[in-house]
C-alpha cells in the first residue's frame, strides 16, 4: 500500500479594509445513527412514515416510562469511533439536557455531556492531491433527536410529529482545526464518506440525517499558531455558532458571510458577541437566534434512569475486527495495486458501491484502463441519465467482458464503446453480442498490408509529408481503419504503416 504524505493547506485569508484576517472553524456534526430502532425505545425509525406512527410510550414521555439503551446504536457509535481512529471509552454515561419545547416530550434530551462514548480521534481531509488538513475530533457522543414542530398547517394551531423523537444521533465534535469554507465543506464530505463506508449513518443531508453546527471566528494571522502552541483559546477571536445546516453549499456561504460580518465589526472597533445564529439561504446572511445571555441553562445532570454504560474491550475488539476498509486505505490501495492516479483514486473511492464496481472490473485487468472506463463511460452515462451506481444498467462483469475483448485484440476501442452502448440499452453477454453484431477487428496482417499499400499508392504527397514528419503517420492509420470499416486492429495498423513508410 502506498503511504501517502500530505502537506497542510494554507488557511483562507480574507482581506479586510484594514488588515488580513484568518478563519478558525470548529464543527459539530449531528449524524443520525443507521438503526432500525430508536436509541432508548423499540420504536421504528423509518423516514417518511405517517406523522406520530413511530412513537412508543417512552418516546412521547408518558408517566412512568423509562429508557433502555439500544445496544446496536452503541455498537454503531463504537464503529464510528474506530473509523475515526478515536479512543473508545469503555465507561460512558448519559446526562439530561433540560429545556422546554413541544417537540421534546420528556422536557430533556438524553445526551452525553460529561462522559462521551468516544474520545479523541482524527479525520484527514484532502483538499488537492498531496494537500490535506488533519482535523482533530474532540469527542463523539450519543444523544436523542427531537421531534418536529409544524407551524404552517393551521393559522391558529401548531402541531408536533414525534416520529423522529428519540432517534439516535451521534454528535461528532471537531477541534477548531478547519481554516476556511472549502475546508469545512470538504470536512463534512469526508466525514460523510467515512460514515457511509462504516454503515453507521446514511449521510442523507436532505432528510436531515446529517446536519452541521458551525463555530466561526476570525483572527489576525499568527494568532492561530499561538493557540496551537498553547491550546489557549484566548488567542482566538470570539466565535459564533451557526446552527443546523444541511447543505455543503450553505455551509460555505454561511461561513464566508459570517467571517466577513465579524471582520467588519472588528475593523469598526466593535466586539463580536458570542451567540447562536441561523443562516438564511434566501438572503444569504446569518442572523442572531439568541445571545449568550439568552442562552438556555440546560441544567445538565446525570440521567438517574440509566446506569453508566459499560462495554467490554473484547466487544470493541470484535467490532474492530469487522471494520470495513476505509476510504484512505482504499484509495492508497487502488493507487498501489491498480496504478490509478491520485485524482482517479479519489473519484473511484468516493462511494463504496463505485469502489466495489471498479474493483470488480479492474481485478486481473489493466487498472488504468478500468478506471478510465468506469469514470468516463460508466459514471458519465449514469450522470447523464440521473442513475446511481447502486443499480447500473451495465454490470461490472459485463464491463469487464468488454475490456477483455479489447485486451485480446478482438475489438477496437471504438467498437468497445459501441458495444458498451448496446449492453447499456439491450443488455447481454459482451462476447456474444460482439459476435452477433460482427464486431471483430481485423488483425490479419495480410488484409491490413493490402489496405496500407493501396492508401500509400493513392496518396504520394501525404507519404512525403509523413516521411518528413513521422507524427503524420497517424493520418494513414486513420485512413486504413476507415477503409476496413473500423475493424482493423489499430496496433497492427500502426506497426504496418510505420514499416511501409520506412519510419
Amino acid at each position, binding site marked *: 500500500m502506498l503511504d501517502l504524505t500530505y502537506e497542510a493547506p494554507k488557511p483562507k485569508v480574507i482581506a479586510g479594509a484594514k488588515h488580513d484576517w484568518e478563519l478558525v472553524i470548529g464543527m459539530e456534526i449531528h449524524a443520525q445513527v443507521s438503526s432500525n430502532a430508536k436509541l432508548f425505545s423499540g420504536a421504528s425509525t423509518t423516514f417518511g412514515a405517517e406523522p406520530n406512527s413511530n412513537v412508543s410510550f417512552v418516546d412521547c414521555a408518558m408517566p*412512568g416510562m423509562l429508557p433502555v439503551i439500544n445496544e446496536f446504536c452503541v455498537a454503531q457509535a463504537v464503529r464510528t469511533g474506530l473509523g475515526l481512529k478515536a479512543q473508545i471509552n469503555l465507561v460512558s454515561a448519559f446526562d439530561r439536557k433540560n429545556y422546554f419545547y413541544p417537540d421534546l*416530550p420528556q422536557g430533556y434530551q438524553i445526551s452525553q455531556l460529561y462522559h462521551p462514548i468516544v474520545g479523541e480521534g482524527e479525520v484527514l481531509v484532502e483538499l488537492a492531491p498531496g494537500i490535506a488538513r488533519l482535523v482533530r475530533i474532540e469527542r463523539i457522543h450519543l444523544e436523542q433527536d427531537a421531534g418536529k414542530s409544524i407551524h404552517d398547517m393551521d393559522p391558529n394551531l401548531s402541531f408536533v410529529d414525534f416520529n423522529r423523537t428519540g432517534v439516535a444521533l451521534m454528535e461528532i465534535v471537531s477541534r477548531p482545526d478547519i481554516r476556511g469554507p472549502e475546508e469545512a465543506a470538504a470536512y463534512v464530505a469526508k466525514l460523510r464518506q467515512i460514515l457511509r463506508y462504516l454503515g453507521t449513518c446514511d449521510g442523507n443531508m436532505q432528510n436531515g440525517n446529517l446536519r452541521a453546527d458551525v463555530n466561526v471566528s476570525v483572527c489576525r494571522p499568527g494568532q492561530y499558531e499561538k493557540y496551537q502552541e498553547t491550546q489557549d483559546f484566548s488567542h482566538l477571536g470570539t466565535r459564533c455558532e451557526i446552527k443546523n445546516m444541511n447543505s455543503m453549499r450553505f455551509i460555505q456561504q454561511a461561513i464566508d458571510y459570517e467571517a466577513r460580518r465579524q471582520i467588519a465589526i472588528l475593523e469598526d472597533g466593535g466586539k463580536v458577541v458570542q451567540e447562536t445564529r441561523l443562516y438564511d439561504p434566501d438572503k444569504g446572511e446569518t442572523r442572531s437566534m439568541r445571545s449568550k445571555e439568552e442562552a438556555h441553562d440546560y441544567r*445538565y445532570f446525570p440521567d438517574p434512569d440509566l446506569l453508566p454504560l459499560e462495554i467490554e474491550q473484547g466487544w470493541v475488539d470484535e467490532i474492530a475486527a469487522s471494520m470495513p476498509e476505509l476510504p484512505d486505505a482504499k484509495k492508497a490501495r487502488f493507487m498501489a495495486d491498480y496504478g490509478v492516479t491520485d485524482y482517479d483514486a479519489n473519484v473511484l473511492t468516493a462511494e463504496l458501491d463505485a469502489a466495489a464496481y471498479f474493483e470488480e472490473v479492474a481485478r486481473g485487468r489493466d487498472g488504468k484502463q478500468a478506471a478510465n472506463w468506469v469514470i468516463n463511460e460508466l459514471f458519465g452515462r449514469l450522470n447523464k441519465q440521473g442513475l446511481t451506481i447502486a443499480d447500473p444498467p451495465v454490470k461490472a462483469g459485463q464491463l469487464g467482458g468488454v475490456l477483455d475483448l479489447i485486451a485480446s485484440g478482438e475489438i477496437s476501442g471504438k467498437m468497445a464503446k459501441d458495444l458498451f452502448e448496446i449492453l447499456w440499452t439491450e443488455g447481454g453477454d459482451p462476447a456474444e453480442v460482439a459476435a452477433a453484431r460482427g464486431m471483430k477487428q481485423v488483425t490479419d496482417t495480410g488484409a491490413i498490408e493490402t489496405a496500407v499499400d493501396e492508401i500509400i499508392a493513392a496518396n504520394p504527397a501525404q507519404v512525403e509529408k509523413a516521411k518528413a514528419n513521422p507524427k503524420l503517420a497517424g493520418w494513414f492509420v486513420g485512413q486504413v481503419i476507415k477503409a476496413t470499416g473500423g475493424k482493423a486492429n489499430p496496433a497492427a495498423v500502426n506497426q504496418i504503416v510505420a514499416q511501409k513508410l520506412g519510419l
Partner: protein
Amino acid sequence: MNANELTIAEARDALARGELSAVDLTMACLTAIDAGTPLNAFVHTTPEIALDQARAADARRGAGAGALNGIPLGIKDLFCTRGVASQAASNILRGFKPEYESTVTSKLFEAGAVMLGKLNMDEFAMGSSNETSCYGDAVNPWKVDDRRLTPGGSSGGSAAAVAADLCLAATGTDTGGSIRQPAAFTGIVGIKPTYGRVSRWGIVAFASSLDQAGPMTKSVRDAAILLGAMAGHDPKDSTSADIPVPDFEAALTGDIRGRKIGIPREYRMEGMPAEIEALWARGREMLADAGAEIVDISLPHTKYALPAYYVIAPAEASSNLARYDGVRYGHRARLGQGDGIVDMYEKTRAEGFGKEVQRRVMIGTYVLSAGFYDAYYNRARKVRALIKRDFDEAFAAGVDAILTPATPSSAFGLGEMADADPVAMYLNDVFTVTVNLAGLPGISVPVGLDAKGLPLGLQLIGRPWDEAGLLNHAHVLERAAGFVEKPRKWW
C-alpha cells in the same frame, strides 16, 4: 371478625381451605371502603375490575394459583394502571388513564391479586402528611380525642387503608421514607426494598435514583409475601437488578441468634422525645433477648443526609416533572388571545401543580442551574457517596442490620404544620432518607404506643439485597413487641 380484617397469610389459608371465597373477601373490602369514606384513603375504586379478578381467582383456586390468588389490594395512585385513573394525586394528571400497566401491578395481577382501587398520596409523592394531594387529605384511622391526624406521607392513603382494614395490604413507594413513615404513623409494617429490587417501570417518577416501591401490610409475613410478588428483574427498567428473588416468607425463621445489630449513635438526635428514646431502647432489648448481639456503631455523615436529600430529590424531580407541559396529556390551561407556548407552559404548570410540587421543582431547578451545580448538586452527590460508605463500613465490620427509630414523633394533626417552615415537615424524614440515599432496604415495624395512644415504629436497615435477613429481624421484633392494637373505629 370480618374478612377484610384478615392478613394476607390468614386469607390465603382460609381461601385455600375453602372457608372463604375471593368474591366474599373482595365484597367485604368494598363494603369497608364504602364505610371508610371519611378516611379519604381510596380516591378511585374499581369494583368491577375487583369482582372480575376475584371471580377469576375463585375459578383458579387450588394448585397452580399464584401467591396472591384472590387477595384484595389497594394500589397507590402513583402506579399506572391500564384504563384506570392514575394521576399521582395531581391536578396536572386529572383524568389521565394510561394505556399500560406498571410492571409491579402486572406482577401482582399475575400472582392473582385483586385491585380494589387507587389510594391517596401526597402529590407526586412529595410530602410527609398526605396534605399535598389534589384529592384532599387522607386521614389516619388512629385518633386522639377528636383531632384528625395525618396518616403520614407520601403513601398516606395506603397506610390509612391498611390500618383501617379497607384492604388486606397495599402498594407504596418510598423516595425518602414515604412507605416507612406512614407505616409507623398507622401501626402497620412497611418495607422499602433495596434500590433496583422492584421495577420502577410504570410508576410515576419523583426522584429516579431514590424511588422504590414496596409493600405496606398488616404483618411482617405479609410484607414478605407481597414483596416476593412485586420484586424481580425487569428489562424495561435499566436500574432494575438482575438478581434472583429468594423466598422471603421461608426466611422468616425467627432465629437471629448471633446476629449483630448496629445502633448508630448519630441517630440519637438532639431534642428527641423521651418516648422515642425509650422505644428504641426496648427494641434493642427485644433483639438482644432473641440472641442478637447489640453493638454501637457510627454513621458519621448522617447529619448531612437530609440536606443532601433535599438537593438530590428536587433536582431529579424538576427534570422528571418537565414532561407535564400540557402538550400531550393531562391538564392544559385555557389560553388567552395572543398567548404563546411559554404562556401555555406557565399557566398549565401553575394551575396543575400544587404548592409543594412547585416549591420542589423550583429548588431542583435552582440547584442544577449553571453556577450552583457544583455547590449544591455535586456536593450532595459526594455526601451521598459518603453516607453510602458509612453503611458499607458498618456492614463490612460484621453488622447484619441496623436499628433506629422510624420517625421522630407519632402522627401529628392534619393542618398542624400548615404555617410551619417547610423544613419542619422535611424533618419527618430524618431517620429514613439515609436509607434511600444509600440504596439499602429498610423496614418499619410497629412496636408500641406513645402516651397519647398513638402507634410508634422502629426501623431496621439491612444489607443490600438482604431483604430476607431484614424481614427475619423484623419478624423477631414484631413477635417480641406483640403489637396487636388497632385503631378504634370512628368512621
